[in-house]
């Protein structure tokens, strides 16, 4: 039996965190959530996830900065980062921040699952 794959989700909206967690759990993923950047970096010190799903505009944090920091750090640079946001410039932001993909809000459950699966497959 394989270890469930670990996914980290950061969003300042607790409902959206809950929804993404519940959706990912339907496929047996191990999900850790955080509503702010500090928690995210704290978690990253302990145990690295295989994929990060992150909002762009978060209270007290900017997903773009976090992504840039992650991509500059040798330890985390290899973890795929996928933006999940209602920002209308999500495609351009994904490109400029060198994020690995994006999911526009509101999203279809199956698109979320498909995107996660694609990125985990590409990373492994």
């Amino acid at each position, binding site marked *: 039996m394989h270890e469930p794959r670990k996914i980290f989700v950061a969003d300042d*909206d607790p*409902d*959206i965190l809950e*929804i*993404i967690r*519940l*959706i990912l759990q*339907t496929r047996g993923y191990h999900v850790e959530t955080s509503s702010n950047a500090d928690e995210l970096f704290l978690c990253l010190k302990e145990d690295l996830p295989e994929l990060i799903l992150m909002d762009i*505009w978060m209270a007290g944090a900017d997903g773009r900065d976090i992504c840039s920091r992650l991509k500059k750090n040798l330890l985390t640079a290899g973890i795929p980062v996928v933006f999940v946001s*209602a*920002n*209308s*410039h999500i*495609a*351009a932001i994904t*490109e400029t921040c060198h994020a690995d993909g994006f999911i*526009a*809000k*509101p*999203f*279809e*459950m199956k698109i979320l699952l498909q995107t996660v699966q694609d990125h985990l497959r590409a990373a492994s």
Partner: protein
Amino acid sequence: MISQEPTYEQLVTRVSELTAKLQESSEIIDSIRRGEVDAFIVQNNGKNEIYTLRSADKAYRLFIEKMNQGAVTIGANGVVLYANSSFASLADFPLEQVLGQLFINLVPQSHRRQVIQLIDAAWQNQESRGEISLPGTGGGAVPVSLYLNQLELDGGTALSIIATDMSLQREAQEQKREMEKKDEFITIASHELKTPVTSIKGYIQLLQFGFQQEGNMHAATLLGKVDAQINKLTVLISELLDTRKIENGQLPFHFDHFDLCLLLDEIVEETGRVLKQRLVVEERRPGLILYGDRNKIGQVITNFIDNAGKYSARDTEIIVRIREADGILALSVKDFGIGIPKEQQTKIFDRFFRVTGKKENTYSGLGLGLYISAEIIRRHQGKIGVESEEGKGSEFYFELPVHPAEIKSASA
């Protein structure tokens, strides 16, 4: 001594010669009067001498006199040597009172100290710039930028002062700020509207998934209908945002390669679930790779199919075709609905336009979908159009250029 008196015949010849010369001179004077002569060439001791009738700097004088900016020249003593009428208007003085006046006296009291400093700075450093207000003739103070520059003239040095009315620039800046504020508002409003929609949609999909797992298909179907309505709401929010962006020329595009048939399959599966008509893909072109904005092209196809569904009866067919010939790809969506009257067909891609018929109240929408679609296709250097007959149906299509490298066989 023999008399040298001219003969009568000689005198007649002389008179006719002089008359001819007089005639020629009279014609030249007339030409000068009519403005047909710019210069004379006169032969004097074997050399050509040119006499121009226009001063070389007249054109520049006229240019300065007619220009919108105020132009002033002041001497070392601060007295105005020259001013154009634009400056007189800005300073709200009659032009004849400006000439010979001390420049400083033409400036409102509150700005005199600043202008004295500008003049001193220009004398010292060759040039200076600043901003003041002048009374203007429109009632309110006019923001004016001053540019002072030293001039070397024949009779010594002088200062040229160019006064530019900044009201229009200020107004444009104000409008730009206002527009940016509106854009920011729309962007934030769209984000804020989409956030709760994301939560509602998320929970609905989770519930639907749960009911499907339990085998309660009735509940799952009902929740599917709720989900479809949420999708409509999302489209409306996006349309409002996109329209604003088109107006500002800021609709973002993200170009990449994508498989058009795969995109169509996704859309057909998605929209087919909620359509009351039969959606049939009659012709496909598998493996056709396009270079464009996948989401936006998808938006156009979805818009065509949604419209076909909106304007045609239950259980009729909606036919989708993808064709490709001579490097042009065409995607069309044909319905057998109410059709569009001839006179409305040219306006159908205009903003806020909605087809009006006898039952106009039964059609929902903001009249933005086709307007946005037309902009998306335009930005892909394509063509969008419709063929329609009232009472028989409509066929909406778009055509996009396909480059040879983008056509790949399905097996490749």
